[in-house]
């Protein structure tokens, strides 16, 4: 309780808790997108994109569990690169890796979150 304002401070999650929550959402969004249930299918996804999302979510979760935040950075960076590669190749069909651009945007968004959480795992200091 804040004795000055009389209000409780907002609950603050640790970077590990945040990372685990986002890793869970990442894995679930992949499974959710595979469901073909209109109108709830927000994002179409193919098998390779689904496996990539689940695999990188697992990598990020391991990073949180073992206190190795660089794994969050790795998972985020791979998601962002994979999403951007699909964006620039969206006009082409490249066999099994031709996933949807919706899932690619989802990857870039979730990758940004992982990188942001990795940033918060580092000590905060003022810069001149």
């Amino acid at each position: 309780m804040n004795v000055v304002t009389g209000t409780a401070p907002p609950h603050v999650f640790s970077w590990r808790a945040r990372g685990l929550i986002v890793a869970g959402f990442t894995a679930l969004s992949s499974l959710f997108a595979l469901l073909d249930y209109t109108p709830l299918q927000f994002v179409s996804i193919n098998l390779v994109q689904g496996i990539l999302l689940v695999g990188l979510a697992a990598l990020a979760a391991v990073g949180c569990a073992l206190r190795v935040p660089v794994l969050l950075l790795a998972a985020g960076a791979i998601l962002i690169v994979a999403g951007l590669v699909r964006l620039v190749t969206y006009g082409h069909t490249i066999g099994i890796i031709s996933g949807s651009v919706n899932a690619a945007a989802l990857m870039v968004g979730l990758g940004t979150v992982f990188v942001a959480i990795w940033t918060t795992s580092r000590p905060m200091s003022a810069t001149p």
Partner: protein
Amino acid sequence: MTDTRTPATIGELSVNAIPTGRPTRAVLAAVRIAVGLMWLQNVNWKRPPDFGQAAENGLYQYTSYAVENPVLAPFSWLVQNVIFPNFVLFGWGVLLAEFCLGAFLLVGFLTRFWAIVGILQTLAITLSVLNTPAEWQWSYYLMFAAQFVILATAAGRVTGVDGLLRPRWSLSSGRPARIAMALS
């Protein structure tokens, strides 16, 4: 300068204060995520390389409505004389903008900037299709409303990347951090 407030006006201020508790914040996050999902779901039919120009479908068809069913004469002129001759470039711009809108409004990254981009994109869509038969005009007005709410409330600060990174940006005096603070 003298304080001209009276007890009555101070009372009015407190009575009319907008709540900022958990329910309000949850609704703001939900609005932002819903708008992000809307853009995310609709990005796939802007398909390169020609964005529907050869078959006259997809993005090309929707853009052509601005000429067939004009909403604003200068915008129709712009579509006919500037956008159509450079349609592939325009198509990539639309694809990139909507891709980023979906990705970054969903996770609340530089939310105010992307809300402005979303409002401008909604304006372009509205000026293209508002007078097209069978269009429900309120869908575009509601898109404007939702994105103005996101812009006004900086909704990325709630359950978003902006909320995570702004404390760090605020401690940095570098130009990128100051720009990020303004755009979030």
